[in-house]
């Protein structure tokens, strides 16, 4: 952290604000992970950290290195893209796994599709819960 005294003040303030906002949102997301009562509520919590939390810190990092090296540093965009594309996929996989486990144990009250569809198609859709739709 030496040699930063000629770092412009506006950039320092902006980087600091983005860093603090990003890490605060990530912390709030994990607090939600601890606080929420059921698994399906907890699925929502980490998305705070992976959208605006990660976004804030990655933009801060981009801004910092762009100002420090006085050229555009955009490689953090790759992580942003990667995180925003992959976390929905993992969360969806997890939610499907959880609902499959809960249904086979008959534990949680999860609405199926049986309510207002003809019984034949409802049975057909229940027969293969891992249908890649």
């Amino acid at each position, binding site marked *: 952290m030496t040699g930063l005294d000629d770092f412009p003040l506006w950039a320092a303030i902006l980087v600091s604000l983005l860093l603090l906002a990003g890490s605060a*949102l990530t912390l*709030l*997301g994990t*607090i*939600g992970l601890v*606080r929420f009562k*059921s698994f*399906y*509520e907890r*699925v*929502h*919590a980490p*998305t*705070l950290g*992976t*959208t*605006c939390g990660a976004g804030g810190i990655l933009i801060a990092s981009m801004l910092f290195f762009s100002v420090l090296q006085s050229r555009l540093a*955009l*490689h953090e*965009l*790759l992580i942003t893209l990667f995180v*925003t*594309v992959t*976390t*929905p*996929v993992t*969360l*969806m996989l997890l*939610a*499907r796994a959880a*609902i499959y486990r809960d249904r086979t144990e008959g534990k949680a009250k*999860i*609405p199926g*599709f049986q*309510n207002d*569809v003809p019984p034949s*198609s409802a049975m*057909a*859709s229940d027969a293969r819960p891992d*249908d890649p*739709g």
Partner: protein
Amino acid sequence: MRRVLPYPLLTASLILMWLLLNSFSLGHLLLGAIFAYGASWAMTALQPAKPRIRRWDMIPRLFFVVLGDIFRSNIAVAGIILQGKRRARTPGFVIIPLQLRDRTGLAVLACILTATPGTAWIEYHADNGRLLIHVLDLVDEQAWIELIRDRYARMLSEIFE
């Protein structure tokens, strides 16, 4: 064109990724182009279903709508977590009938819904077009159904179908 370069978009984005990871120079551009070309041929061996994008001009609009929604729902969910038990809150499942049948459009819709804090995609049945989502703060079930149908599904079916 298709014979020489099977996936032009994939090749271009791979070259861009290579240049972002390394610094820009002519050598890196050539090396990245060689790798991207090889990777796009490797992709043909997998034979993925090719998405057909009909409306390119809608994509930036969808992107900014989603960005704004993610920002707003971040603030809303942060408020819910901060308030804790002081406010009564009813999480719940919502079943949404969808007209959108395009696989790529459904995949994009799944990513949008799950990436937005407050809604999570649980499962979709292709044979009756019904989607099950979980909502963190469920006030009005009908409002959620209309929101997702009118805000995202319509735009996605315009882009892909």
